[in-house]
């Protein structure tokens, strides 16, 4: 069941590529605006780089949250998913995994290239990738709660932002903290461990919340 659902979402995303590309281009454009707006001062760019990359990643992943359940909700597939003989928890995990592969993984891949604009060293770029790899799944799984709660509402996009962005704050602090630490020559290990802990906790608990929210939304 699990792999079929992930596979289905990947095929659907491939046939609706424009949606996925929009997220990636948003990420590229937002991060590129900062060097243009602030000027080519190397040191300033380096200082703001961790924050900018991470904030842009948060916003870009926000954009795609509506798609986790939105289309399935509209065509009735979501009801069928809730009624499958497997726990809704697994359905949510599969949808979140697919969302991460579709909308977040491209951000992780493109981030080092964007980091170059800010003059980040090779070592820091590795930390950018590592922190995003650990942090973006948290964004997907926590975002799924907001996405499930706002299904079928009119101002869903704005509401998701208000619900989910405050919950993203720890990820933002730990993620940009890791990159910042690597810039100053300190060890980013502690930050990465904190991110990993956040990932584990949110993977265990957030899908429960999402399944409960889904059941309310389809009722």
């Amino acid at each position: 069941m699990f792999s079929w659902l992930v596979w289905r979402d990947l095929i659907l995303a491939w046939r609706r590529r424009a949606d996925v590309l929009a997220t990636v281009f948003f990420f590229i454009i937002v991060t590129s605006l900062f060097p243009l707006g602030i000027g080519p001062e190397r040191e300033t760019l380096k200082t703001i780089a961790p924050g900018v990359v991470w904030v842009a990643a948060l916003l870009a992943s926000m954009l795609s949250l509506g798609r986790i359940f939105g289309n399935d909700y509209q065509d009735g597939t979501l009801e069928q998913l809730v009624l499958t003989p497997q726990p809704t928890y697994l359905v949510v995990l599969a949808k979140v995994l697919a969302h991460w592969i579709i909308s977040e993984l491209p951000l992780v891949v493109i981030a080092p290239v964007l980091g170059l604009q800010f003059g980040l060293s090779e070592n820091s770029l590795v930390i950018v990738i590592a922190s995003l790899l650990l942090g973006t799944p948290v964004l997907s799984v926590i975002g799924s709660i907001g996405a499930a709660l706002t299904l079928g509402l009119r101002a869903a996009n704005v509401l998701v932002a208000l619900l989910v962005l405050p919950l993203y704050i720890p990820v933002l602090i730990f993620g940009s903290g890791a990159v910042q630490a690597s810039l100053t020559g300190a060890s980013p290990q502690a930050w990465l461990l904190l991110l990993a802990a956040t990932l584990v906790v949110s993977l265990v608990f957030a899908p429960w919340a999402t399944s409960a929210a889904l059941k309310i939304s389809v009722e």
Partner: protein
Amino acid sequence: MLEAINVTCVRGTRRLFKDLNFAVARGELIELRGPNGSGKTSLLRILCGLATPAAGDVLWDGTNIRSLGEEYSASVAYLGHQNAVKDELTAIENLRISSGVAGHALDKGEAQRVLAQVGLTQQQNLPARVLSAGQRRRLAMTRLLTANATLWILDEVLTSLDQAAMGLSRDFMTEHLKNGGAAIVATHQDLNLTASSVKRLQLS
């Protein structure tokens, strides 16, 4: 097998029905009738476990469906107003993926056989986007054939079907009842099933 005890449904501030009692046994079909807005869909959604009744219980073999959870879902196939068909996928992909997700994967041959049963052989490689409303309904009906469910819960199953497809769905229902299944069907048309075990439930 399925038993509704004093089921009451409230939508917003309006009470749709109150203290509804009925039971379905194997080989039995309940034809659910009632004007628009009388709560047919709400009742069906309560029966399949998507919604909770304001009061009352739904029992499956004597146990509340709330406590059965996924075990109950495995014995029920629900076909709602919406077809749950993905526009971007072809007919055969829709069938194979939806049955894979529901936990009983079909290989290509099996899927083609099921599509032939509902008369979609020619359309199997067309994206569902270009199928007509009736063809999409036929595609949704394949879910009943593959689900292996004891209880079918069907909401307006005959809408946008042509004569041939209506005949088909009647055949499917008769066959299902003969095999010891049960069904609850909300409808405005007469089902005209040859089986004698059809009960009628009227909502006002």
